[in-house]
């Protein structure tokens, strides 16, 4: 008994030694800056001599100002739209793929190519294709007898266009993960349901969806937190415009810090926004069975 306990403690110590390097680096790159941002959010600092304690003033300014409300709203609209569209298309594709007799592997490989493209290059591609005067999409619309459209330059269309760009970019993520989930589904319940005369909608609604629930939640969680962070595809296409119609919270924080050098205001924005993102993450974690993630 004693021998066993001793080896167990020793193993535990060894474990800590193996973990230290990774978590020290993570502490320096994630915990330190978070605490620093939190600390600085109580000061007024513009990257110069001005450095005053202002208490909660930055928070009051942020919450009462129109700018943050607009960008937070834009971010939420973007996230909800992009995640919904990507989810429906990705799940649909994953189910459709099961009907293919051959070539599934090849098609899956080809479909994941957009995921390997960076946010900036995605922006470049779509700027070229959507350009109002020379873009191929405008030409395609013209062939269909439709008028040329402004897309990214039109305040009414810009956000929708960015949602579509993100859909092109990230739907494959939903598709690949749910495909893996669909392939792991047990066959028996579906055979039984067919024998019992269940319609294909009933099989989808009462078998596929509940059995896929863990995979669906993982997919929605990763897509949601990723969309909340949206930066590169907006920076690369509209930069937040026209006006502020596509300005996300991260674009706002970037501008506050690097365009107007309002460092403490920028950090306040990010503290509030990161708390919001954390809340969303925790809600998803609550829905997930504990062993799935974390």
């Amino acid at each position: 008994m004693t021998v066993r306990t001793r080896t167990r403690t020793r193993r535990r110590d060894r474990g800590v030694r193996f973990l230290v390097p990774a978590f020290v680096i993570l502490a320096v790159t994630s915990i330190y800056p978070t605490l620093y941002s939190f600390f600085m959010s109580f000061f007024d600092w513009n990257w110069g001599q001005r450095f005053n304690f202002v208490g909660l003033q930055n928070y009051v300014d942020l919450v009462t100002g129109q700018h943050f409300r607009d960008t937070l709203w834009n971010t939420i609209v973007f996230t909800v739209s992009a995640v919904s569209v990507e989810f429906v298309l990705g799940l649909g594709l994953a189910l459709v793929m099961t009907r293919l007799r051959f070539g599934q592997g090849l098609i899956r490989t080809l479909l994941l190519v957009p995921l390997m493209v960076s946010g900036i290059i995605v922006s470049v591609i779509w700027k070229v294709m959507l350009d109002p005067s020379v873009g191929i999409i405008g030409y395609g619309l013209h062939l269909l007898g439709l008028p040329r459209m402004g897309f990214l330059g039109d305040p009414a269309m810009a956000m929708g266009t960015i949602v579509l760009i993100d859909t092109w970019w990230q739907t494959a993520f939903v598709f690949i993960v749910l495909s893996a989930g669909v392939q792991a589904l047990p066959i028996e319940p579906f055979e039984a349901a067919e024998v019992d005369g269940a319609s294909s909608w009933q099989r989808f609604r009462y078998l596929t969806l509940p059995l896929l629930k863990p995979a669906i939640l993982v997919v929605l969680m990763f897509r949601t937190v990723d969309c909340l962070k949206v930066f590169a595809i907006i920076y690369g296409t509209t930069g937040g415009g026209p006006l502020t119609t596509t300005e996300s919270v991260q674009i706002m924080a970037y501008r506050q810090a690097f365009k107007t050098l309002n460092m403490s205001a920028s950090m306040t924005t990010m503290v509030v926004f990161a708390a919001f993102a954390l809340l969303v993450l925790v809600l998803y974690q609550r829905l997930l069975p504990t062993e799935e993630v974390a």
Partner: protein
Amino acid sequence: MRRRRWSIGTWVAYAIALVATLISLFPLYWLFVISTKTPREAFETPPQLIYVPDFSKYFEIWGQAGFADAYLNSIQVVALGVALTLLVATPAAYAIIRFRVRGVRYLRFWLLLAYTTPEFLFVIPMYVAYQQLGLYDTVGGLAIIYQVFAIPFAIWLIQSFLGEVPRELGDSARVDGASELQTLLKVYLPLAAPGLAATAILVGINMWNEVTIALSLTFDNARTVQIAVAGYRGYAAIRWQEMAAAAVMAVLPMIIFAGIAQRYIVKGLTFGAVK
């Protein structure tokens, strides 16, 4: 698979798969087309599908100091960053699967949190710190900050690869007198080598494609390839051909690497959460 003859459903499925594949690939094909046509050809209507590709823009761009330097910077950041990630994430993943680590749930949540945090929460403070430490606009500084997302991602993946090695192999090495470090290096690593290589590729792709952090923490000296591509967007006139050629050069190696690591991408995309 049940019915032997091709039903309408099967045909429809193939039609949908074909359309989805075309939508996925056409924009990249078009990027290539723009980069290899002369300005006049590129935007003529109707577009000519058959033409003699002209690669002169590629050479022209590579000859411009800025782009080649940025490309080499990115290679250095990825090499340095991936080496650091594997060096620290491998033992951590080993500890998580082999020992009873107290509070491992909290460590895992921390990993998820670091991986999903909106970048500017840590980028702005690191900008301040890097200015003082002389790490701003350096390849090393970027390789360090990239660990925020690389370490969680790598620990998650490596853990799933090391977990596939039968536990008894490690235990018998320990009985024979090997230290834990020797067990990791001599027993686990050779068996998990393909998984580690895939991890290196996937982490490398993430670092190569990173935009937000690189934009904020580099200026000129350590400017990465992504920021160089962004630079071609210009203000007055967009230089379409140059921009497209630069983008093709930046994206092509990633597609090739993704092809190599293809088998492991599902695991990589899901943190191993869906088997």
